[in-house]
């Protein structure tokens, strides 16, 4: 029950494209001791707004604090914890794998099996592009590793709640009903993982 818990949470933040917004977000996580497992940023469908996908590791207390502090940043418009939702989650990876004339076909077979793509062919290496959930990328990586990995680049997770009927969007989820004052009742709140006292004078 603390920030070291490996439990993963996916959080989406809609932010204003203002200078320094990433510094604010990153600084907040470092300052408050929240762990970011991955962070992906890019434009949204709305002008002047970007979407960030975070994967945060930690217990319920940590993720609750993290989402509320994110909400509190002036440049952050909306935060949604979509961990409990039905989502589409994807990551893109580029893997540069060492090749020799003798093992090349074996490698290509693995790549095909994963429906990955070869996007660059060198004399001694191949660059493979793959998209999918983290587990798929991990699995491909593990199979290619014996051949020698020269370079790996991963984007981190991007995620979106499924549209279902009515075309629901991720921002509709909300970080926490209590903050938004929507459901009002005593929302179930996580028990703090006992911050210690501080010996200061």
């Amino acid at each position, binding site marked *: 029950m603390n920030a070291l818990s490996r439990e993963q949470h996916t959080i989406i933040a809609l932010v204003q494209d203002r200078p320094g917004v990433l510094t604010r977000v990153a600084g907040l996580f470092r300052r408050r001791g929240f762990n970011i497992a991955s962070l992906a940023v890019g434009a949204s469908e709305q002008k002047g707004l970007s979407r960030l996908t975070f994967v945060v590791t930690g217990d319920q207390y940590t993720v609750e604090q993290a989402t509320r502090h994110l909400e509190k940043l002036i440049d952050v418009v909306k935060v949604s914890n979509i961990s409990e939702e039905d989502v589409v989650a994807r990551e893109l990876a580029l893997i540069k794998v060492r090749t020799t004339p003798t093992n090349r076909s074996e490698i290509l077979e693995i790549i095909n099996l994963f429906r990955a793509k070869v996007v660059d062919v060198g004399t001694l290496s191949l660059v493979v592009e793959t998209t999918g959930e983290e587990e798929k990328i991990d699995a491909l990586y593990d199979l290619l590793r014996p051949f020698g990995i020269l370079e790996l680049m991963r984007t981190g997770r991007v995620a979106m709640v499924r549209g279902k009927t009515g075309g629901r969007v991720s921002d509709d989820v909300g970080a926490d009903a209590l903050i938004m*004052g929507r459901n009002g009742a005593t929302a179930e709140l996580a028990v703090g993982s006992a911050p210690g006292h501080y010996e200061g004078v």
Partner: protein
Amino acid sequence: MEMTGAEIICESLLREGVDTIFGLPGGAVLPFYGALSGYPKLRHILVRHEQAAAMAADGYARATGKVGVCSATSGPGATNLVTGLMAAQMDSVPIVCITGQVPRAAIGRDAFQETDITGITLPVTKHNYLVMDVRDIAPAIKEAFYIARTGRPGPVLIDVPKDVLAGDKIEFEWPDEVDLPGYFPPGAPDPRQARAAADLINRAERPVILAGHGVLISRAWNELQELAEKAQIPVITTLLGIGAMSTEHVLNLGMPGMHGMAYASLAIDRSDLVICLGARFDDRVTGRLSDFAPGAKIIHVDVDPTEFNKNVVADAPVLGDLKATLRALIPMVESNVHLDWIKETDTLRAEHPSLFIRKSDVLLPQQVMKQISDETNGEAIIVTGVGQHQMWAAQHYGYKEPNSLITSGGSGAMGYEVPAALGAKVGRPEKTVWSIAGDGGFQMTLCDLATAVENNIDVKYAILNNGSLGMVRQWQDFFYDKDFFATIYSGNPDFVKLAEAYGIRGIRVTKEEDVAGAIQEAMETPGPVVVDFVVKEDEFVYPMIPAGESVHEMLEEPEAEGVGFERA
């Protein structure tokens, strides 16, 4: 009319109702100062150190409830503001700082006096701006003031490159509204949350109210009193909540925590409901969290959702502006008398006389505080530094009015006492302002006595001079084998001569019988005065709950036992 960036700042400040700016110029901010000299409605108070500018703005804001304003140049000028910003951020005080920056083309090149002040102040501001276009100045200022004073207030810094201040002229346009799609300060609470809180109050047999700074920020002291009286609930005020209810009110049980009144901490310990209003369960209040209010349910009213469950889990969190929340809550709360519980708290007061002042041949700091309280009838504004004197000021002054104690609580910034008192007096010139200073803290910022003199700011400085970093010394005495290493000040100046060197009255007091006379003399003397109260060196602040312990480990004044009820 077309205006430079610097003129636009001045016009915008006027639109925000600013009357005073505390600051000190330098190269990068000079165009702003050039414009400022043409705006006599904006009084500039020239400080001797930028820390004083930030802390004076903070004192001004706490005394008036308005946004305080300060300014500094780039680089060292801006970094000197940082401690003041931190103090304001920790205690939710609205200030706006305007700093000059090197010209845009020089940014990132380690130019002379360049520093990334927006980066540096990220953790100690509520928000900040680096304005790179003259057209963005007016909107940034409008936003800055709005952000600083609404929701949970805090400091906002605006950094403006020199060539944005002094470059292109544009037509001045004051925006009608702020455009902040990600910022919604809460207003009235959700009725269901208020209902849940009211139900807990109506069921409670031994409730206490823990009133914090939020009551003062939201100007909800009348509502606080109404709620307390309607249901007869004892009110405990945190250090920053002092003044939310007059100390003369029978329901006021004083301050809890590390150096709070024993009966206040014990009442929380025995309560079955803690109604926390705009306070944040600081470790100095709670002690060991697992032992805090063990039998109590918790209602937590706050305007800042990150405070819920941060330290103490709330059974009924209520998000909202405090005044609006209390207004919603009061009609739902049933009248009550809580007779047995009130009697029990009276017994606690009688059995734990935490404000007892014993007889002594040597002048005691508590005696000085008590006398200042009596001589000012509890109606002055008291500004303090940090340390023992701060705790005695919190304990032994009979605060009657809201916003009458101005102290650096969350950050505990020594040196606050000199400049914050200046700001308070400038903001509330009609009030008597006493700065209760430590000899340590006073020496951190005494250069700004010159600011008091230059602007005839009538602050009375009472130094509780114990020749040491008294609070640290107390910890060494209690917890570090009485090894008084690096806490004794043997090189203190003669504070009376020091005052005279600044051309103001200095008075030294060494005996109890001279205390009242000196206080009166100080108050009868126009302009700033320094009174050097030479007090007992090794006096301790009691009660004390050692850090990380609970009310059951509280150390009480040994001689206070069996003394009975003190302050009425």
